[in-house]
């Protein structure tokens, strides 16, 4: 078990060191998410439309689209110089490799989200601070769901020639429950509702996270094998 966590740590460490040197992933995700929000800001008349109504959808669109950039990059790193083969030759448990990549994606996306939330607050003129606790919980649950499914599918599409196109095509339809749940909950939180009123949505996202984590554990061995 000790070696299992060491493997997860090794992969997260490697991805972090790479990112600290290149800064490719964070900068591209952050700029893309900012652009998505700006495009919507310029296309919506906020004096007519209630920002609390449209804001959650725009916020999650920014998270999901920019997160997809990160997922594409994540397994691209492993394909360069056939590093994925190098990983497959190690005695490391395949699920540990998966969780390492998933954790890296989760942390990178969460950092980006932490930077995007204040921008969202400023652009949409919504005070998030009174709702910060519940909002962070929703962002956490939604991001875990996105990263679990996204990492699984990006490992699958890593073997495909047109992986940049295939990943969103595979990911977005399956991600619908998480996106709907996260958007609805974010909207309700901004409307001042309590988390207790959203137990169905929380249950839906939790079920999604658990089901796809189980699916990843069961299938990752076959997916990573060529």
């Amino acid at each position, binding site marked *: 078990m000790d070696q299992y966590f060491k493997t997860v740590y090794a992969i997260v460490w490697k991805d972090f060191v790479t990112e600290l040197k290149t800064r490719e992933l964070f900068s591209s995700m952050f700029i893309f998410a900012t652009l998505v929000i700006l495009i919507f800001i310029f296309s919506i008349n906020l004096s007519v439309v209630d920002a609390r109504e449209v804001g959650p959808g725009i916020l999650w669109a920014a998270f999901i689209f920019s997160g997809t950039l990160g997922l594409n990059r994540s397994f691209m790193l492993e394909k360069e110089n056939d590093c994925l083969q190098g990983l497959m*030759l190690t005695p490391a448990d395949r699920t540990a490799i998966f969780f390492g990549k998933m954790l890296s994606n989760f942390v990178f996306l969460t950092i980006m989200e932490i930077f995007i939330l204040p921008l969202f607050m400023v652009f949409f003129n919504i005070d998030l601070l009174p709702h910060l606790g519940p909002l962070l919980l929703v962002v956490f649950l939604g991001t875990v769901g996105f990263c679990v499914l996204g990492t699984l599918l990006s490992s699958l599409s890593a073997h495909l020639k047109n992986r940049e196109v295939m990943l969103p095509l595979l990911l977005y339809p399956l991600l619908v429950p998480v996106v709907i749940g996260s958007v609805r909950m974010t909207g309700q939180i901004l409307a001042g509702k309590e988390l207790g009123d959203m137990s169905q949505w929380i249950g839906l996202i939790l079920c999604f996270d658990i089901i796809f984590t189980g699916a990843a554990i069961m299938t990752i061995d076959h997916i990573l094998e060529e």
Partner: protein
Amino acid sequence: MDETSQPPSPDVAVKAVGLRKSFGWLEALRGVSFELKKGEFLAVFGPNGAGKTTLLKILSTLTRPTAGSAWVAGYDATKGDAELRKEIGVISHASSIYGDLTAFENMVFYARMYGVRDPETRAVEVVDEVGLKARLHDRAATFSRGMLQRLTIARAVIHNPSVLFLDEPYTGLDQHAAKSLTEQLAFLHTEKRALILTTHDIDRGLDTCDKAAIQVAGKFVRMDSIDEIDRKNFENLYLKTVRENS
């Protein structure tokens, strides 16, 4: 228990019995059988498409055979056992080295993946062994092809494997780098370690090996000890064998 399901004796490092591999209608391997003892070095020569890489991929658990059995370091290679992967190192023309990381960081990463004790010390040690200590903290992307191949060797032996597979390691190397690789292989060829090298470079292959096999169209057509080989005429023999069996 038939012959194919029996594990080999402890002095055997690699044993393949009737290995077959098909990709749809294409038969990449058509019944490869051989045995290699600990400390032996086998060079496998063969034209493109002979199935050399497929053979090494099966032995290194990267792919499973359609039929037949294979044992490496006492483990069944057809089961993809993690214990087996602790015993093998693989060097191919793809380096599996992260270009954005330094030589040191790459080695520390792989040492951790293999569960090597004290990864940092081992990383420095193994980079020193391949003569790259001066470039320890340089990004791998700045390395020449020859230096990258030496770093690939360091990656492959970081966990001190008992069996080493080398798939066309001379590809893309200049004369100096190829000579340096031959020296490295001689260094890696110890009493306890078995090596299998696939190559088109007959002279370099014969320089280093104890046994030589010719693989054509998915089969080992012949396998001889280096003492039985007439080195002067081996190239002609190779070309004739390939022509007759293609």
